[in-house]
């Protein structure tokens, strides 16, 4: 048996590794993704002051500090039995929209987009944001940089510091907005709406009008008919900051809808011996191995999961795009992994429209931004991180110190599905042991679509090692070595 290993992570060697096992004919027998699990969080948290958790957890991940910050703050609202004033909720949500604007922009133009804009089988050295700019033009590059920075700026104005926010407190926020700040944000948001519309148009022109790409999106190796999960508002529209957790089946029908405090009644984690990562599944359906379909409890979160788990978007332009998405891709649910990219852009448009609603709301300058907290107890908080449902759960002692802490992060929610997507893509593209860079990229695309967050890759130096592929023979002796970006 031959083993092919794709190692796309650089500094953290041995972390984030794809192993593909070939059978005697050189076809794919199975494939696994191993990603690191940061360990010891519960022990680390124990005995700390509960109100420090939003700052501490925002450092877990250099990528989505805002999502952790607010999942944590909301868990504290619940643990201290306090409902924040309406203005505080709006300020939090507005900041959250800033986070979505920069995060989704970054993913589409820098990480996921190059596969489509430059081409899935383009040389790896071209398949990056510079390749996108080469093809789309320098002016577009400037727009990308500008609007990503606007998202950051909105987050920084509300959060204190863009990279680790300090505004979330149990019962509210520490800082409101003044009129000048409102004016500044309003101007940026207006521009962001146009940018989001432009991005969808670009996706239309470059991807949807290219039959080859649409064929790839709809091709078998990229289909996965799992359950879908995401937060929804009272009208079952997508919501990033608050609401109930809704799960729909493969046809888009509601399977269950629950409050975060009941998450453990609905979600269970399966353990495999080859990885530290756990595999959550729906408790009532059960664990049936790495299978999709209605008998398997595996579900998907993130942009595609959220759109599938809802009945529309709560803002007009995004809702129009939502309908077009399902009309184009054949109705509910859309099961193509590569449709994550389109879903992400629809969410970008929603985030900008929602930000505009919030910044125009007269209550946004209210100074009533915090309510007094109650006695410490137990609490759960949920938000939609850019890459999926994120749950924080704390148990406090009578002095307000952390006794127990548990997190379910987005990439963990997707871990079962990501594994299957990699396996299916590998089966689809590797035949008779024939592997080249283009084929490997088609496999990488299957997991890049999820925008997986390998929590410990918090920073980037030297940003060095490239994609490496090792092929071993059945004696585990190195048989062939392929490298990209060297």
């Amino acid at each position: 048996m031959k083993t092919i290993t794709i190692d796309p992570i650089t500094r953290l060697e041995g972390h984030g590794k794809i192993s593909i096992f070939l059978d005697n004919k050189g076809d794919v027998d199975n494939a696994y993704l191993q990603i690191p699990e940061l360990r010891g969080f519960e022990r680390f948290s124990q005995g700390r002051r509960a109100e420090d958790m939003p700052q501490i957890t925002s450092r877990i991940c250099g990528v989505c500090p805002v999502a952790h910050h607010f999942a944590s703050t909301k868990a504290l609202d619940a643990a201290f039995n306090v409902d924040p004033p309406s203005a505080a909720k709006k300020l939090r949500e507005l900041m959250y929209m800033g986070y979505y604007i920069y995060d989704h922009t970054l993913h589409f133009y820098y990480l996921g987009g190059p596969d489509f804009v430059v081409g899935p089988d383009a040389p790896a050295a071209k398949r990056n944001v510079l390749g996108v700019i080469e093809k789309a033009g320098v002016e577009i590059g400037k727009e990308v940089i500008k609007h990503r920075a606007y998202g950051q700026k909105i987050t920084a104005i509300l959060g204190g510091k863009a990279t680790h926010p300090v505004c979330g407190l149990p019962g509210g926020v520490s800082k409101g907005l003044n009129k000048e700040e409102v004016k500044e944000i309003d101007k940026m948001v207006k521009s962001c709406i146009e940018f989001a519309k432009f991005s969808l148009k670009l996706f239309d022109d470059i991807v949807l009008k290219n039959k080859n790409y649409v064929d790839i999106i709809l091709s078998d190796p990229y289909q996965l008919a799992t359950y879908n999960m995401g937060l929804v508002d009272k009208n079952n529209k997508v919501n990033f900051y608050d609401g109930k957790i809704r799960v729909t089946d493969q046809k888009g029908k509601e399977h269950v809808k629950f409050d975060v405090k009941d998450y453990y009644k609905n979600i269970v984690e399966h353990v495999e011996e080859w990885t530290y990562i756990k595999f959550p599944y729906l408790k009532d359906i059960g664990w049936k191995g790495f299978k999709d379909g209605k008998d398997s409890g595996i579900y998907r979160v993130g942009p595609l999961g959220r759109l599938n788990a809802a009945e529309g978007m709560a803002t007009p332009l995004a809702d129009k795009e939502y309908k077009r998405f399902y009309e184009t891709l054949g109705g509910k649910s859309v099961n193509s992994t590569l449709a994550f990219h389109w879903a992400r852009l629809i969410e970008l448009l929603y985030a900008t429209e929602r930000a505009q609603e919030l910044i125009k709301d007269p209550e946004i300058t209210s100074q009533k931004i915090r309510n007094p907290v109650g006695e410490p107890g137990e609490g759960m908080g949920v938000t939609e991180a850019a890459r999926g449902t994120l749950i924080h759960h704390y148990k406090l002692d009578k002095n307000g110190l952390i006794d127990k802490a548990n997190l379910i992060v987005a990439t963990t929610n997707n871990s079962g599905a990501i594994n299957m997507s990699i396996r299916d893509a590998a089966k689809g593209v590797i035949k008779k042991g024939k592997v080249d860079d283009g084929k490997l990229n088609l496999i990488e695309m299957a997991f890049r679509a999820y925008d997986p967050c390998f929590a410990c890759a918090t920073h980037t130096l030297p940003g060095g090692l490239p994609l490496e592929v090792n092929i071993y023979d059945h004696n585990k002796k190195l048989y062939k070595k392929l490298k990209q970006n060297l």
Partner: protein
Amino acid sequence: MKTIILGIGNPILGDDGVGVHVVNELKSKIKNPNVTIDEAITGGMNLLDLILGYDKAIIIDALKTDNGENGEVKRIPLSNFSAMHSCNPHDVSLMEAIEMAKKMGESRIPKEIIIIGVMMRKIPCEFGEELSKDIAIAVPKAIDMTLNEIKNDMKISS
């Protein structure tokens, strides 16, 4: 000449946070109004945003090594790194961010970017605020190297 010293790393992830430990100690040792000292738990685009507008950036970070010694400290100009592939699947590398900015006509990129790298065999995956023994020894070495860097710059400019 305006310089920024940035300690990079995750302060709650053991040795990964060594850069932050180093800048925390540097804050009391450098009182030069032309030198800014800060920390960041970020990479790529965000890191670029932080260093724009300075003439020089000194970045202190953990570097993964396969053959080097644990706790060894090295001074490496950023231009020595050639790779474009980021270690973080959700961000671009600093080099990629800089290339992109150059292409867009960005004029505020520091002329000189120096990495003070603390070598480590293994990047930790366990939460904690303490440095291991090997890496703690590297902190004074990294501090000296950074102070020398600043001193030399002052000599040159005077």
